[in-house]
């Protein structure tokens, strides 16, 4: 079957083997080179291979052996057993228990929701447990490029139409939970990682679907949702509200970012596999220092760690790479803070986190000369929030005063705030606002010589809106509208006297 172009697609064929090997390799390579972000080359491949078929869902064979032709390391060195997972054993146990419980008692809800930061091993855990418990995974993939010729249906009048994504999703839930593959009679598990976009707008519909599924579904259904910082995009918040979780008996398991020791273990495994699979010819064995910096840079993202490992070890082999590695090691700071400058994810932090760092500045003292330096550099903090500088500044302004004990310290902070506000107001040059934000952040951090002790809650930005409705109401009552009175004039001249006169 492989290597030969087929002229038709069998409807029983739900394995992605029908793609020519040559093409697959090419796709694979270009994919892993281009996108570091994306996680799973197979899912994309399947999308592409499926573009011509009528079926929109795929069965993934759980037996995923080491494929030496793929150059995506995440896939090549994907964990082969549950023990290989870089996930806390408790979490693995929770997922396994849920499936086993479902087998025993089907009334107890057949929907599981897995949440967690990217690269924490959610999908891998599901895959391996399914394999262990002898399940076939049937995953929903949003059909991205629909070929009109293959996918259009004919309605009663003979006109062609394309099936709606929503209908397809319903189909998927209904059919794949009921009808098992003709070839093997294994149990089936549904996996949804790729949410049809329509649900983000139409949560009602989603709720209805879940209700239907929990009533009629015959297979366990697992949703995997990656945590996001943006509330609007947070699927677990928008689609799986408390009421939804409650009414459909959804079990929720949230994964944490992988710990340093787990990533270390995982990388060790990858390295041992590297040497055993004969990759040592083209890849160098990374030094422990390098591995440590990879772990540091990854911020608990295993996928990212493996990709970085791939990249970092690859560099060693060529003559150019050696130099490049030398520069990266130079770029690394001392001690723990050795991280790549040009590699890996940004250490993204939330507003509140950054605010804490600014308002409670921590100093690190170098023992040699006793000079205190700020642990978090103001420039770094400022540049992290360059996308919305004025919001950060307002938040800082609302909260900074109560962290001070001495008015003399406040004075310089207030001054730099006021200066910074001017800078942010300058619209002619982009870079000015960065200087402005740095000024405010540094001003607040440095000037606080005597910080207030204890925990101080962060206050939200002051909502500042003038009460315009009541203002025009009052005007209308008095019949004053013949001359438009602006709100400023109303407040500064009219209000007091009008109140007296009206009485």
């Amino acid at each position, binding site marked *: 079957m492989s290597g030969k172009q087929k002229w038709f697609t069998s409807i029983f064929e739900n394995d992605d083997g029908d793609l020519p090997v040559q093409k697959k390799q090419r796709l694979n390579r270009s994919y892993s080179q281009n996108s570091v972000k994306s996680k799973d080359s197979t899912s994309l491949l399947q999308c592409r291979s499926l573009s011509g078929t009528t079926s929109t869902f795929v069965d993934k064979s759980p037996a995923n052996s080491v494929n030496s032709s793929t150059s995506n390391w995440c896939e090549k060195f994907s964990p082969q057993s549950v023990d290989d997972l870089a996930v806390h054993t408790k979490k693995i146990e929770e997922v396994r228990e849920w499936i086993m419980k479902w087998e025993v008692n089907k009334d107890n809800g057949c929907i599981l929701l897995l949440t967690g930061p990217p690269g924490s091993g959610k999908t891998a855990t599901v895959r391996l447990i399914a394999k262990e418990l002898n399940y076939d995974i049937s995953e929903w993939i949003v059909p991205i490029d629909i070929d009109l010729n293959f996918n259009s249906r004919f309605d009663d009048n003979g006109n062609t139409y394309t099936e709606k994504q929503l209908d397809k999703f319903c189909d998927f839930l209904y059919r794949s939970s009921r009808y098992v593959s003709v070839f093997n009679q294994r149990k089936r598990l549904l996996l949804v990682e790729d949410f049809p976009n329509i649900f983000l707008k139409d949560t009602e519909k989603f709720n209805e679907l879940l209700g239907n599924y929990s009533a009629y579904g015959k297979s366990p259904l697992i949703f995997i949702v990656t945590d996001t910082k943006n509330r609007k995009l947070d699927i677990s918040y928008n689609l799986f509200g408390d009421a939804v979780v409650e009414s459909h008996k959804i079990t929720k398991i949230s994964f944490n970012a992988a710990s340093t020791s787990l990533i270390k273990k995982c990388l060790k495994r990858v390295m041992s596999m590297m040497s055993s699979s004969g990759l040592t010819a083209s890849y160098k064995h990374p030094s422990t220092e390098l591995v440590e910096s990879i772990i540091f840079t990854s911020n608990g993202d295993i996928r990212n760690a493996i990709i970085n490992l791939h990249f970092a070890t690859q560099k060693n082999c060529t003559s150019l790479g050696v130099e490049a590695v030398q520069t990266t090691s130079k770029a690394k700071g001392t001690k723990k803070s050795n991280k790549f400058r040009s590699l890996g994810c940004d250490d993204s932090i939330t507003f509140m986190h950054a605010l804490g760092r600014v308002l409670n500045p921590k100093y690190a003292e170098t023992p040699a000369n006793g000079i205190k330096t700020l642990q978090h550099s103001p420039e770094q903090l400022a540049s992290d929030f360059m996308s919305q500088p004025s919001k950060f500044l307002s938040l800082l302004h609302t909260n900074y005063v109560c962290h001070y004990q001495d008015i003399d310290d406040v004075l310089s902070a207030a001054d730099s705030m006021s200066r910074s506000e001017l800078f942010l107001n300058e619209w002619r040059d982009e870079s000015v606002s960065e200087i402005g934000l740095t000024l405010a952040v540094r001003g607040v951090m440095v000037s606080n010589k005597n910080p207030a002790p204890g925990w101080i809650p962060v206050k939200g930005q002051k909502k500042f809106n003038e009460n315009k409705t009541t203002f025009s109401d009052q005007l209308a009552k008095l019949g004053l509208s013949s001359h438009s009175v602006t709100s400023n004039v109303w407040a*500064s001249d009219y209000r007091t006297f009008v109140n007296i006169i009206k009485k």
Partner: protein
Amino acid sequence: MALWVDKHRPRELSKLDYHKEQAQHLINLSQQGDFPHLMFYGPSGAGKKTRIMCLLRELYGTGVERLRNETMTFTTPSNRKIEIMTVGSNYHLEVNPSDAGIHDRVVVVDLVKHVAQTHQLDPTGQREFKVIVLSEVDELTKDAQHALRRTMEKYVATCRIILCVNSTSRVIPAIRSRCLGIRVAAPTIDEIVGILSATCKKESLTLPNELAVQIAHKSERNLRRAILMVEACKVQQCPFTSNQSIADLDWQVFLKETANQIILEQSPAKLEKVRERLYELLSQGVPPDVIFKGLVENLVRNCDITIKAETVKLACLYEHRMQQGNKHIFHLEAFVANFMAVYKKFMNDALMLDEF
């Protein structure tokens, strides 16, 4: 019930009580065939709007007094709908574009376009242009002012713009140079006293001269405020007496209290309380520069002569920044923090001296 301010507002240029020579110039201007863009500037309550309305009447006749309120909707590039209240007649349209906040640019441009694209119905009997009155132009963002500059030029054939501003310093030079500036200075105390007495006579009341002078002083030469004060006085005590009490403006009282609190205690905790109070004033719509001025006046009145100069110097610095900046509270607070530090240092030094 119309307030006295509206009831006794002069409707014709020839009936104005002060700046009579200027009124004559305006009459001459309106009799000419052509007419430039105008910019009326002067302090609040000096009579800018009154003069604009009189001028419009001179141009178009009594038709401009048939006013109607209209709510216009504008759509920003980000698809946000903004509603702005306008007052207008067949010949003119009056808007306060700064109501739109940061979206004022859209309002200015769309409004002028909207008005300018229709010609006067009957150009033979009327002027061939319409007039747009924009108030509080100095509150507009720089962006909007630049947009205004361009639109002013483009649609000069069908519409003229009359700007009403408090301070020309906040209007960009490009706009200033395109307008004929007309300065409306605040009336003198004597003029105010005269107007107040005349107003009371029309209401068939007699106003004691002492009270009139007192009110004129208290109003800070703001005629609108003065007339409102008289009316409030009338409500409080009907036959006027020369020593009756005059109601204070509530925000002035509030500001004075705030200043006293600053003098009483200088600490970060107090600074936060002061900020709350300043927010309160700002959210009621008192203009930030008025707040700043009032605050400085009250503080200077209460502190020692040695730090007065320092205080005023600080005030100058932060007021300037406030005018250039966008978030007024930042600069107000920075000034208060600075004053607190200066005052505290002065008090500590004084204590030290006492001990010797």
